[in-house]
């Protein structure tokens, strides 16, 4: 028989809120690259508008965590869960901010032609999306199998970023008129690389939540 029914329900609700925030951050990052590829200004503006929803959620989740700690004195896995929620909402918020930064770049680029076909950037986005999805599943299922290989997956993103950067640098040197567009794209790639790092932070927190073990993924 489970005692402390309300407390357990509160914890469940907390987890749902975090998942919702994670889902919104993930969609924002996905849409940012969609907007870039399709030159969809409306979608880009929408991302910026919806950023505040994520900010509000972060604030609400933080309050819930504080309240649970103050009123319920959580222990063991519950304590680790609350600690994890507190930490990962910062990373989720950063992901949505980075999506917003990409959206702003999309608005600035508008119709101007790209200096190169976009191949590696969508690839980086796909990889980071996969990592965020796996984080959310791992968090919800309390199952770490799908996030244990994040160091390797992040290395792939880092390598793609290096490649994009080298290419764009070459373009900028050879064709100064392309600097504006190339530097925009460089920032997009940098933001995607950062999103991968945040996914790694989230994953190591989830491993701690599930196992109690502190493992650094980077």
């Amino acid at each position, binding site marked *: 028989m489970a*005692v402390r029914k309300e407390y357990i329900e509160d914890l469940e609700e907390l987890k749902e809120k975090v998942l919702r925030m994670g889902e919104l951050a993930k969609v924002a990052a996905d849409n940012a690259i969609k907007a870039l590829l399709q030159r969809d200004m409306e979608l880009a503006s929408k991302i910026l508008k919806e950023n505040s929803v994520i900010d509000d959620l972060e604030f609400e989740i933080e309050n819930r965590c504080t309240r649970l700690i103050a009123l319920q004195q959580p222990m*063991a*896995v519950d*304590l*680790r869960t609350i600690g994890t929620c507190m930490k990962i909402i910062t990373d989720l918020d950063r992901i949505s901010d980075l999506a917003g930064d990409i959206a702003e770049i999309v608005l600035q680029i508008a119709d101007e032609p790209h200096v190169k076909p976009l191949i590696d950037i969508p690839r980086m986005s796909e990889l980071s999306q996969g990592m965020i999805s796996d984080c959310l599943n791992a968090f919800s299922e309390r199952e770490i199998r799908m996030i244990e290989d994040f160091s390797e997956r992040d290395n792939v993103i880092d390598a793609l970023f290096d490649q994009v950067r080298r290419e764009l640098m070459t373009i900028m040197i050879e064709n100064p008129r392309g600097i504006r567009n190339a530097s925009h794209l460089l920032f997009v790639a940098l933001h995607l690389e950062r999103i991968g790092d945040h996914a790694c932070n989230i994953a190591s927190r989830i491993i701690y939540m599930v*196992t*109690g073990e502190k493992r650094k993924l980077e």
Partner: protein
Amino acid sequence: MSTIETRELNVYYGDEKVHALKNVEIKIEKNKVTALIGPSGCGKTTFLRSLNRLNELLGATTKGKVIIDGKDIYDGKEDVIQLRKRVGMVFQHPNPFPMSIYDNVAYGPRIHGVKKKELNGLVEESLRKAALWDEVKDRMQEIALKFSGGQQQRLCIARALAVNPEIILFDEPCSALDPVSTAKIEALLRELKHEYTIVIVTHNMQQAARVSDFTAFFLMGELIEFGETKELFERPRDKRTEDYITGRFG
């Protein structure tokens, strides 16, 4: 260094009808606070009482070994009076004797033949260690029962300290006290561990977390998990410990 070690400790009540402790094996470290937690009836008090052989006064049968400072106290050669001097106990409800503050503290030393001229100093020292001296130094001849519950409990601690024990057992010492008195006792426990080995039973998980270095979780007479407090409350190894300390256990 462990100061108390039990081996295959089994305790039965009433013609072995109740098997209150089942093969408990534990090593309790010197100058540390060890907390015992677990649901009502799991054997915490029984375990505590097995460490100074109080159980036998209640008709319990004990099997196995309790080794204190390298010597088994159930080997038949132990002087029980001396044992209870070395292993003091403080109970849930403050139980001062119906006599003055002074006489309460002096009671044990007198029995053990402490000289009259040494008594004053010993009483003062014990009351100081129990963080009660300043509150009672001008009221030494007043009857103990007039004092508050928290003061009475600290008096009982002073009484236990006066016979110069090595180990002090506390059975839910704060459960009848308000938060301020509780905080005083908790601060006291942290002080006392520098000189004594402390074992405390508590139903308050936060208290166990606050005051103890090691925690033992008992369930139905079995020792389920024993380890460093900070480990046990952050990442218990056993599912049953986790269910209990997170409150998913009814």
